[in-house]
């Protein structure tokens, strides 16, 4: 994630990482339909701290991260559903949770991700 800020224009990123919420404001102002995913709880070694954001638009374009890339694919798929229905969802990811989710965290941690629509 940190390396994502390299080469970003000052407008796109500021502070310690890509400013996902600033980008969400601009994407939304530009008329895109969006979902915002947020890490709300972590157990064990989790790659991104609580509060980390991933934004997804209705075409599946995304910025930010909620893990080291392990579960983003699944979050994006759920986010498209959230954009359609307008209802938030809570997602749980763990390393041993392979029946519920085909993806998991190879680091052995567990995370909970809240996915909500961005309402205009």
């Amino acid at each position: 994630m940190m390396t994502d800020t390299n080469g970003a224009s000052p407008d796109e990123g500021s502070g310690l990482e890509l400013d996902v919420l600033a980008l969400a404001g601009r994407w939304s102002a530009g008329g895109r339909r969006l979902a915002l995913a947020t890490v709300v709880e972590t157990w064990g070694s989790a790659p991104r701290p609580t509060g980390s954001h991933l934004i997804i638009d209705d075409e599946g374009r995304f910025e930010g991260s909620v893990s080291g890339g392990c579960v983003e694919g699944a979050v994006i798929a759920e986010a498209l559903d959230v954009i359609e229905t307008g209802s938030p969802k809570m997602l749980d990811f763990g390393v041993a949770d392979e029946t519920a989710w085909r993806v998991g965290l190879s680091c052995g941690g567990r995370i909970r991700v809240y996915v909500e629509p961005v309402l205009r």
Partner: protein
Amino acid sequence: MRRDLIDAVNAERAARRAVLTVTDLATGNQRLVREAEIGRDPIAELLERAIRSGKSGIVEGPEGESFVNVYLPPVRIVLIGAVHISQALAPIARLAGYDVEIIDPRTAFATPERFSGFELHAEWPDVVLRTRPLDAYTAIALITHDPKIDDGPLIEALKSGCFYIGALGSRKTHARRLERLKEAGIADHLTSRIDAPIGADIGAASPGEIAVAIMASIIEAFRKRKMFAERRGEQAGE
């Protein structure tokens, strides 16, 4: 999250103030709490704890489970002195993800060629800091080696509670600096915050090595959240 909440969070951060959002996980209801409004909130104590640690998380309030997200302003590093160390420190700071700006009134040092791509002010620090004041989310390193340039912003940094204040110079140089600060009426408990000799004690000798040592100290000060305790006049907790 509603667009107006997102815009409000972004506006607060741009104004260099911390802000929180509280999401009721059962209903999805959300509210924004500005730093100055925490005292009036129904879960003030929990929010105070969250903003102090800088950590987001789920809290159990009287109305059930809520997720509290803490948004801090972007952290910036101010380098007083467009010297050789700064030429190494600026790109290191950027790689680590921090905003950086360099201030030096000596136009021979503060040239765009030496700091290509970085925010550079060839002016006296007090002039620049008047429009871009120091605050608790700012680290400052004083590295001109010239008291005429360093002392003004150093006193300003001590008063405004910068989360890291480092000053270049040997123990002898620093002892003389402390004497000058004492004469200027700055209290001992403030001057004891100055990191001097500057940077992590790794035996750094070259400008690049000293830059790495300074960056390590800045990261430590920020990640260990000493600034939140010190802002409230408490002992820094580890």
